[in-house]
């Protein structure tokens, strides 16, 4: 399996660290909704098919990536910086303009 890092190009999967489901929503830190926190920590959709997941290019540029990958045949459909799925406010804090350009 190879993942196309937006920075580094196509690299072997050994360079990446899997960080799990990218669709889980972290509740607001001030939230005291126990069910929301439990769901965030424990409950997963675990789809057979397309799965949005977080990988870090830990053996390369160290960027956090959101990879859309098919769990049935391991085909990778898209790779993007993790920051891009966040709210524009958070993303602009983390990414320099040149880095965002490289991603596109």
């Amino acid at each position, binding site marked *: 399996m190879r993942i196309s890092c937006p920075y580094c190009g196509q690299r072997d999967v050994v360079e990446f660290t899997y960080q799990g489901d990218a669709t889980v929503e972290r509740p607001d830190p001030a939230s005291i909704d126990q069910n929301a926190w439990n769901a965030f*920590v424990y409950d997963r959709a675990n789809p*057979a098919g397309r799965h949005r997941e977080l990988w870090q290019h830990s053996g390369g540029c160290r960027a956090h990536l959101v990879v859309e990958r098919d769990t049935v045949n391991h085909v990778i459909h898209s790779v993007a910086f993790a920051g891009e799925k966040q709210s524009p406010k958070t993303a602009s804090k983390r990414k320099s303009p040149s880095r965002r350009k490289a991603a596109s």
Partner: protein
Amino acid sequence: MPVKVVGFVKARGAYVAYIRPRTYRFEASAPCRTEGTMAEYSAFSLLRNAFNGNRDWKPAWRKPEPKPSYDVIIIGGGGHGLATAYYLAAEHGISNVAVLEKGWLGSGNVGRNTTIVRSNYLLPASTRFYGFSMKLWENLSHELNYNVMFSQRGILNLAHSPAQADDYIRRGNAMRLSGGDAEWLSPEEIGRTIPGLDVSGSARFPVVGGLMQPRAGTARHDAVAWGYARGADRRGVDIIENCEVTGFLRDGDRITGVTTTRGEIRAAKTAVAVAGSTGRVMKRAGIDKLPIESHVLQAFVSESLKPFVDTVVTWGAGHLYMSQSDKGGLVFGGNIDGYNSYAQRGNLPIVEEVMSEMVAMFPSVARVRLLRSWGGVMDMSMDGSPIITTGPLPGMYLNCGWCYGGFKATPASGFSFAWTIARDEPHEINAPYTLDRFHRGILIDEKGQGATPRLH
């Protein structure tokens, strides 16, 4: 490197006089049936069939058409599903049961594991559950009148640092306290047990000791599936292969049956024992999220060698477990690939990692050729322990979350799941393995890894 040993008698075998294994409170309910002289497979039936041209053997299970309704439907014709059907019929007299299998019988993980049976766990819930499973294993060939080739050749966990030794000794003591068996072996004793292993201080990863569970071992995995299948079939259970569940029939919230590729089948009770496919099947019942991730685990067999190692060895400096099959092949495996997968095949980096670990442990096998490798889909739970419970919907029963330790649990899983289905309440041994333990914060996390399924 001296290791302080507390609670163990060092000499192998001497511990029997030191501590007497306790019996379980519920031992009276552990089944001990024998088929007697009328057994279908016996020396006499072998002789009789030899003289009449082997014309009287019957298939081990029928190929029935599905009936419109049953008392219980079990989805999944693997080890756990078949064992559940067997114990439902044998223990609870419920034989109007269908086992629905989407492929052929035993095509999933029961035929894809590395055949290791052990009960070397730390936490009380685990030592009790797997200890009970070990007791069922010890009588299983007799119980099923089917040779599952259960070989109690022992499992040896090698420790490579004093800290790891302390950890293993603690686990060994926990096993002993719960009535199990464990022994601490010195490097010299390990050297005598496994002559092929370098136990000198100059080894790449020096061995400081090892935890041996003598009652552990291996079993012929296909025979376990076939034995349970035949036992269930002869008691009236319908095993229906090539029958994929496509949806669930409902009456309000209650599950009243399933739709399949071979038509609708109704039942008062529908049990799900589909391991890696849990997410896929439960979505069809409207359960979108579970504390489970499906991951791929690979396993390997080498070409046949002369007798090389007569126990199961695990390597503590990485993650590797290895034994030698009766045919002579080295059967071994390591970590899961580490990402969600339903593919039943893995990637090459793990192949390389496992091979390098194997060569680090036994440099002498470096030139042995690999014969086969394959992958299976593991239902990795959030705390590394299984779920055997009623629900989550009325009329439904769930058995999943086996991570990559489901094979050894097959008898106890079937026994306790059958109990749960028959009585609508858990058996003492599976009571801790609820689905709501995650949200209630009463996890059974053997490794203390937290909610990271790929690390369990």
